[in-house]
């Protein structure tokens, strides 16, 4: 790890000025479960680390008729333990329950989870000066790409590692961002960015902006959700493929489907074709299959990760059937 200075922020307003114009100047730290690993691996080499935990009042879950508002410093354990989350937001509850380990969930925050950097082994290793670190190539191309993206067309083939982000996206959550010019609210669907937009980052945040809150609208009464995660190692592992599904089914007919895949693309991947196909259709086994086919229609697997297409397809089929029954 490279030496750095450490600053305790005392207010949200102060943070943009403590941060810099470049990601190499300064980064923010909440739980630190991802950042410290990145710094140890020299994937992140900030000159300054701005601690957010010293800001009071950012650790909350507020509930009203519109839904939930989760503060930036709320831990995954607190999200998991909140009665409303387990009762009304099962897709989120299930997603958070399979993130990392209890020890990590005690430290890690919900906001930090959606801001996680890629787990790509080329990105994380000091041995590879890859595109995402300002280098010239994506080593997944022509390399060992077992865990890489099956959607998107590069130039980087990382996958977004978050389990919470697909769930929040499926619920239509929004993100509150605070920057030098104050705060604004952005839909999760508009928050993440593909590599062709910004090769170095995975979302729209600028170096001097932070996420202060995540707002989750309450699902409509006849809507149901579930989260499926396939991982090689059950005890602690990132997803090979995950699926967050939220569906409104009335008398066997799908009114709305929100299907977001994780672990398959550089961002949480909304299966728009499958959602469109399902809307207004009566759900049968054959239609669940067709939706699954539609979800992976655009998949472009690499030499070692074709299996992910099959898993993604099967998860969509399973979830659609389960939520319609």
């Amino acid at each position, binding site marked *: 790890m490279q030496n750095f200075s450490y600053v305790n922020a005392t207010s949200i307003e102060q943070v943009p000025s403590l941060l810099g114009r470049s990601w190499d100047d300064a980064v923010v730290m909440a739980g630190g479960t991802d950042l410290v690993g990145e710094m140890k691996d020299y994937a992140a080499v900030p000159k300054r680390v701005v601690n957010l935990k010293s800001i009071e009042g950012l650790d909350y879950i507020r509930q009203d008729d519109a839904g939930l508002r989760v503060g930036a410093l709320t831990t995954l354990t607190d999200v998991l333990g909140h009665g409303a989350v387990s009762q009304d937001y099962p897709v989120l509850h299930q997603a958070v329950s399979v993130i990392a380990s209890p020890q990590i969930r005690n430290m890690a925050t919900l906001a930090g989870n959606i801001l996680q950097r890629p787990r790509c082994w080329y990105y994380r290793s000091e041995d590879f000066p890859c595109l995402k670190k300002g280098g010239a190539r994506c080593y997944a191309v022509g390399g060992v790409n077992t865990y890489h993206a099956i959607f998107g067309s590069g130039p980087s083939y990382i996958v977004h590692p978050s389990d919470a982000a697909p769930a929040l996206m499926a619920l239509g959550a929004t993100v509150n961002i605070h920057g030098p010019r104050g705060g604004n609210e952005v839909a999760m669907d508009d928050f993440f960015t593909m590599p062709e937009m910004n090769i170095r980052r995975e979302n729209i945040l600028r170096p001097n902006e932070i996420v202060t809150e995540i707002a989750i609208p309450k699902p409509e009464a006849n809507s149901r959700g579930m989260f499926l995660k396939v991982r090689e190692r059950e005890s602690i592992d990132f997803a090979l493929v995950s699926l967050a599904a939220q569906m409104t089914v009335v008398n066997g007919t799908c009114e709305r489907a929100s299907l977001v895949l994780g672990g398959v693309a550089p961002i949480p991947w909304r299966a728009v074709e499958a959602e469109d196909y399902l809307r207004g259709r009566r759900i049968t086994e054959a239609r669940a299959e067709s939706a699954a086919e539609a979800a992976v229609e655009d998949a472009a697997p690499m030499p070692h990760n*074709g*299996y992910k297409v099959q898993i993604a397809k099967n998860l969509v089929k399973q979830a659609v059937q389960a939520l319609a029954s």
Partner: protein
Amino acid sequence: MQQKMKTVTITIQEDGEPREIEIQVPDTGEGGWGDLSKNTYINKPHTRVDAVDKVTGRAKYTSDIKLPGLLYGRILRSAHPRARINRIDATRAMALPGVRVVVLPSDDPEVFSRECRFAGQEIAGVAATTPEVAEDALHAIDVDYEVLPFVVDEDTARDPDSAQVHSDRGNVGEPRVGEQGDIAAGFAQADVTLEATYRCQVQSHIALETHGNVCQWEGDKLTVWASTQGVFSVRGELAGHFGIPETNVRVITEFMGGGFGAKFGARKEGVICALLARKAEAPVKLMLTRKEEHLATGNRPSAVQHVKLGATSDGKLVAYERTNYGTPGVAGSANIPGAPYLYEIPNYRIEQTSVFTNAGPMAAQRAPGHPQAAFAMESMMDELAEALGMDPIDVRQMNDPNEVRRNMVAMGAEHIGWKTRRSATPNSGTGRIKTGMGVGSCRWGGGGGRTQAECTINPDGSVQVRCGTQDIGTGTLTLVHMIAAEEFGLKMEDVDVGIGDTNYPYSGGSGGSTTAASVSPAIKGTTMLAKLELFKKIAPRFGVEPGELVASDGNVFVGSDPSKSMTWQQATAQLEDEPIFFHGQWLPGYSDSGVPGVHFVEVSVDTETGLVKVDRVVAVHNSGMILNPLTWASQVNGGVLMGIGYGMYENRIMDPATGYMVNANLEDYKLMGSTDIPEIEILRYDEPERGVIGIGEPATIPTPGAIANAIYNACGARIRDMPFTPDKVLSALAAVKEG
């Protein structure tokens, strides 16, 4: 009822030459351990004597050692899989505040080579006042490399046109051939002939405690705290390297966080630590990082086995041909057992080669070569059973020459319900999740020898036992307490035991599952003969022969008349001023070698995601006479888990384009975690008359093969390529669908 004596032949060193002599020792019956039902300690389950120290952190491991003025060492490693160092400049590093010394190839060309043959090879060392500064210093050593062509996968390396790992020899070593009978004639007799290729990956050792040492010089005397499987092997290597007598080197391993075959000798990191300490004139601690463990401390070599097996229609094996190769990295051998594994085959030919690649060198790993051999053989036995329409167990039993293993297979089959619970038809379940059952077997040696010990009985009744073995986490220290306490009729805590120090009598390294069978006869013999010396002094007081006395429950009494008794302290008080001191050694008659093992496995396979879950393992093992059934069972549990890890998760992945290992961590190199652990049931097959036999290695061998067979039974997909990850399961399932 005088105790019978018997004559045993032991080997002693005389003027540096071994000489056999005969000595008289008490005859303790077949197997050497007496009537087990009368024991207090031996063959009964006992918690480790140091369990509380370990779980509370009181136990000090090498990484916990702190000395005044301690420096922290790190090793700079080659940044390229193949390169030549033109120039190496530590000026910037030495200028960093806190950096005390750097050692370069010019300091010790024997340790550091300018020819880098794998990414991770040692090229320099640094010692600094904090670990953080030492790490910064690594980044401040400037190395000018001439980057050269490399090859990291064994398939490419076999091509004569590929990059050559060594300049003085080709990548493919001399073939080792084993043969018997006439394979052409054998295959001519075969009604069915099967051919398949099985692949096993490279596995890292992953001891919980990484390799490392603390070295401290005083003049030309060196003290080393080492995380090692052999304190004497560390002493020998360091004395040799620094040209000092072995008596000048003391190696201490009081507590040790695991070793699976890669922790013998000082190794490069040990020599570098001692070099840094000598140059800095200060003690240095050098513990490796997890990444260094993966890159440079050894691994289980890969194995690619092309196998052809011929059998008659009734299942009798008649011919076997195997061509296999694997990579030991830059050095060593990838050979696996050189005869057909487990089964009797009259005609066979095996040809195997090791293929050098620009990757870290292999080291012995828990049953070297056996899991690879067992996976291929036990998979193929199942494939044969399928081809012949026979029960896989019947095919095994009719070809297995080992009666004990046949009994153990039958015992496990009965317990798990092979006939009643297993579907004879693969892929017979309905639904997404399919379940199945499989079996695999093994053989191992595990004998003992090469251990000395000493015992002091003091007039105040205190007893001291010393032996220079080391407890690598298996419970050896507890065994010494148990055996001595049993012998003297004392409590385990009443015996002062010292191990893990080259100042104590010699004991060999802890490898080959030999520690228990080496140490326990030496402790038994030494304490038994020390006790006899005590009895010689006491016996006249009772008017009996020494052999008529018994030490039990804190008393010494006449066996035929327990009323003639005195307390242990009264007995030892007879020694007046002079303690009894006895130097003994390993004795024959208390241990044996050669054991089978059998694992039955149940799995569930999710046919939509390719995920395999090992649900249950029934492990049948035989260790002759088990000293401590509790730590023995821990060894079996650990072996089963390591076997599941090899079969299901672990895989060193080299990037062919760049020559780097991409998963040199514990995130992408997947070890199983607590929730991946299945239900494990252990069945003991006791043969107490054989004495003590080791368990560390046999317990890990059969699991991957048994899992592969269970997967096949569950879903009809035969996976010949380890580990059994979802990508392979899904593609095998797709192949089944297509027929």
